[in-house]
């Protein structure tokens, strides 16, 4: 396995994780399940898990770009910078459903059962894979004469 192939493994993994982070929340939020908050004036507004799903999309798109750029980058410095950016976006994916916006309190809601754990798991894996990409870039730098 060449160093270039080895560098592409984290890139593909990051791209897949980005798709999971962007797409899964769209189908596992209370708005998608037809549930809304009814205000005192009768108006219906989306619950906070809906906004988490939207924000996850904003994290997923740059993460996908990081994955694609990693796949086509040759320079070790670029790979390292992209790896660090990927790790930061992974942290954001974890923070969205836990601290920044959150999901609904009801333990049986799909956002609580599926969206939150998926975002946290994908975020942790994105951090791990991005840091692995940084390590691979370091190895490539060592091998370059």
């Amino acid at each position, binding site marked *: *396995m060449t160093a270039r192939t*080895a560098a592409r493994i984290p890139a593909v993994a990051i791209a897949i994780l980005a798709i999971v982070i962007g797409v899964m929340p769209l189908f596992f939020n209370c708005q998608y399940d037809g549930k809304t908050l009814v205000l005192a004036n009768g108006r219906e507004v989306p619950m906070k898990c809906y906004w988490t799903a939207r924000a996850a999309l904003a994290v997923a798109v740059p993460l996908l770009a990081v994955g694609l750029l990693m796949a086509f980058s040759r320079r070790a410095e670029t790979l390292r910078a992209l790896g660090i950016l990927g790790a930061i976006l992974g942290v954001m994916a974890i923070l969205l459903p836990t601290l920044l916006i959150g999901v609904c*309190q*009801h*333990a*049986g809601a799909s956002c*609580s*059962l*599926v969206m*939150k*754990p998926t975002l*946290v*798991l994908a975020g*942790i894996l994105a951090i791990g894979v991005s840091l692995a990409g940084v390590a691979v870039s370091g*190895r490539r730098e060592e091998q370059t004469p």
Partner: protein
Amino acid sequence: MTLFRLAWKNVVGSAFRSWVVYLCVLLVTGLLFTSVLLIGGTRDSLRLIQQRLGADVVVVPEGTEAGVESALLMGRPVKAWMPRENEDKIAHVPGVREVSPQLYLASLANAPCCTAEMLVMAFDPQTDFTLTPWLRQHLGHGLSAGEAIGGSDVFVPYGEEHLRIYGSEIDLVGSLERTGTGLDTALFLTFETAYQVAEHSRTEAIRPLEIPPESISAALVRIEPEADPRVIALQISHEVTKVTAIPASGLFQTFRRQIDGLLRSMLTLLGAASALSLAIVGLVFSMAVNERRREIGVVRALGATQGEVLRTLLAEALMLALGGGASGILLAALVLYLFRDLIVVSLAMPFLFPALPLLVALVGGGLVAGLAGVGLAVLFPVVRASRLDPAVAMREQ
């Protein structure tokens, strides 16, 4: 160059072989760890719910055993009613020390008069031995009218001060520890509060809460220390008509049988996956060692002993086993921890993530199993390679 560094260079240098071994070990240890954690977590949960009930015998109306068990395990509403006079009849059975009645009710789903759909369990504070000791210890007093305690997943909705049950406002004054069962989504209140809610629901709820007069859903029984719960249960079933008395050890037998069946299936699957993965590890290592016969011959000709070659090759295998095993266990633990609520809902079985000391022991056990498995799988090719004659090996093309 140290043995560790030489082994590490070989691991990095043979990336394909290393990835195959790593992924096989990850799969085996991940599966092993998941199975042990799932089965152990389910059994812990069942044990905890029995401790929480604190009863030696549970008496329910005839034919409602499965429904009551399902209510306790999964929080599914159940309709179970028997005359309250049964409480006195049970109390007079020789060997019975205490009897405490309970009512099992359910709030309404998707109704403005109820905060959420949940199992509501009412108890008699005069006789209760299940929740009252917990209340005295944690709250310093029992529950007053209009007060309730909830399972770990019961909460007052954001922006509100009370829970609404059939149009009545209930103060949530405490939460019980997580059990991984339906009790986590149950609400516990006194008989007095339950009857007040029922009365109030006639005018305030979209559907009234019906509690048949002079009826109870179940009776929890504590027996004398020297008495046998199975004998007392038989006596109660004999002396009180139209009830089923279940000794604590006999509770949740259906679920236990399901878990045992699941355990057998998992062990079969795990055995097949482990055997296949370890066979692949052995084969890949054997192929890799064959490809490196000349290299091993050169190393031997340069003065390396049989033992040094053996230790280097074993170190390579164990490094990969350690890495794959740790990753597999970490990934399995992470997935099970994050998706534990989904597991409870989708598999319809209770599950409690183990406490830290047990988790550490399981992680250690998983790693040892991974290392031992890989050690055994690669032993034959590694020993064979270390015994190569350097002169013969170096002449091979």
